[in-house]
């Protein structure tokens, strides 16, 4: 197959790849946040390139979660890429498994595998399956792809922590589609019954699903009221899921909580980063064709340059 682009071709744009180790070593919170904001955009560009090259994959929901996944793996979660079976590691279940490409990009930058491996996405014999597979991809805590499983699994992880007297955190990232599934509401009920510590539901609330706007396909609002009515602890605000600073603010709030379980809603945009793809359900899973690629990529590069100037 002819190479159309590659994650490594970002160098052609004369924009440097950020050394992820520097993010982890940075002690100034504002500088670290700016670096994570940059890395999220860099991953967005990587994913855009890979999905175009492969002609397969889900752009909309992947880019929606870029900042959330970056913040989790570079600031919030306590993990050891060199020891993936470390029993005390924090867990993340990416219930919206169609965000696999972004998860892989973040995991690669975090050191679980090489960035070059991203180019094997969805290939035969690749470790990077179409949707996440915990037995193939280092760092993936649960195989997902069928919506609605994540919260139940994370609840099981959190209950296991309590049973085994461990203090790791159990996070689950869900999208609108997961919230449609009845099983998610079974999990919402059961979490509020058992109340295991350190169970956090993160909602990537882009409000667009495969067939159209969530308000048309299956309205979820008033979502905060629903979660409160189910006896969850939720913050007084909806955070901007594309601002690393806001995500870090939300983490500061989460860490102060003592009444479990905790849910946080992040307003995001499906297709984030390419103006004509944002909030359009078509870009849930459409192939990034050559024309859209050529038209869209400069926008992503332009944003990356702006973020570079703030480093």
């Amino acid at each position, binding site marked *: 197959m002819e190479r159309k682009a590659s994650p490594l071709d970002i160098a052609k744009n004369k924009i440097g790849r950020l050394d992820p180790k520097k993010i982890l070593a940075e002690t100034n919170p504002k500088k670290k946040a700016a670096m994570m904001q940059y890395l999220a955009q860099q991953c967005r560009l990587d994913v855009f390139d890979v999905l175009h090259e492969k002609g397969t994959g889900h752009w909309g929901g992947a880019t929606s979660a870029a900042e959330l996944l970056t913040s989790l793996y570079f600031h919030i979660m306590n993990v050891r890429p060199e020891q993936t079976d470390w*029993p005390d590691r924090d*867990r993340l*279940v990416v219930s919206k498994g169609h965000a696999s490409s972004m998860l892989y990009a973040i995991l690669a930058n975090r050191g679980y595998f090489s960035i070059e491996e991203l180019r094997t996405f969805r290939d035969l014999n690749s470790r990077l399956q179409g949707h996440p*597979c*915990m*037995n193939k991809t280092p760092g993936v*805590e*649960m*195989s*997902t*792809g*069928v919506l609605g*499983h994540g919260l*139940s*699994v*994370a*609840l*099981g*992880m*959190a*209950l*296991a*922590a309590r*049973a*085994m007297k461990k203090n790791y955190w*159990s996070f689950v990232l869900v999208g609108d589609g997961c919230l449609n599934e*009845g*099983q998610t509401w*079974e*999990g919402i*009920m*059961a979490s509020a*019954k*058992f109340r295991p510590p350190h169970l956090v539901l993160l909602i990537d609330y882009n409000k667009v699903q495969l067939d159209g706007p969530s308000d048309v396909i299956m309205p979820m609002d008033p979502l905060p009221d629903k979660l409160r009515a189910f006896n969850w602890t939720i913050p007084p605000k909806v955070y901007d899921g594309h601002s690393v600073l806001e995500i870090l603010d939300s983490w500061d709030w989460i860490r102060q909580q003592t009444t479990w379980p905790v849910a946080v809603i992040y307003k995001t945009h499906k297709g984030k980063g390419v103006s004509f793809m944002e909030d359009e359900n078509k870009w849930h899973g459409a192939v990034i064709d050559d024309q859209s690629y050529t038209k869209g990529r400069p926008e992503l590069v332009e944003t990356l340059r702006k973020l570079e100037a703030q480093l």
Partner: protein
Amino acid sequence: MTTKEISMRIAFGQALLEIADKFPKMVVLDADVSTSTQTLLFGKAHPERFFNVGVAEANMADIAGGMATCGLRPVVSTFATFVSLKCTDQIRNVVCYNNLPVVFVGGYAGLSDSFDGTSHQSVIDLAILRAMPNMTVIVPGDAIEMRQALESSLSYNGPTFIRICRNPTPVLFENHPPLQIGKIRKIRDGGDLTIGVCGVPTFMAVDAAEQLSQEDISVDLLEISTLKPIDTETLVASASKTGRMLTVEEHSIIGGLAGAVSEALGKHCPVRMDFVGLEDTFAESGPYIPLMAKYGISKQAIVQKAKALLKQ
């Protein structure tokens, strides 16, 4: 044959209590039927290791999957029909795909929830669960084997389904060598035809073989408690000796023991076959043993089909 009868579910509830210390990582989940399945006994003794999730089987299966990734050994208990149908997606995508050590114990299986009728009876569970990659499928023949299957499953590093009966049934294997996962138990040696049986009808097959022997028909009687992985070696050795195979099960003849044996012998040793089980039909309410008989599962049905098979 002994006339002593014990219900597998009573034995299951008792076993969980007795093995709690032996398997300290074991936890038990139930979906609001713990009074029926008898897991409530464990729940009362070990409330911190017992999780009643309410009537939400899908959630229960995935909670167990999450627990298993973190080192616990979950035993998931509900009715067999709910195991196979209310959490099929969860068993496939979370437990089996990831090869997680979760033990599913499907109670009230076959027609044993006889009076509750078709809604609660479970006659296609083996077809569904046997088709799941990584899943081990065990159908104990009595309460003794049920407990042995449970302990073996808790020591096995992968998903397991154990199918158990609601009602008291004859104890067959007290003071016998224990059930071994993946191994056929030979109950009787014979040369005219092979009868392969699993689950509650095992006692019927034992009686049928005895009756046939009085009519000078010698039966090679195999108890096939593990449907998957099936003991192909023993099956082939028997079928190649007798040339005829009759399977007997409390399940549809589609996809259960009949399917498993046909797949194995069709590939390695094709012989004349017939099947005792439900003929692609739902059943109805009624008393257990007569209900099974009406739907073709009885000692008489086994004898009749065995003789017919020998005439072919």
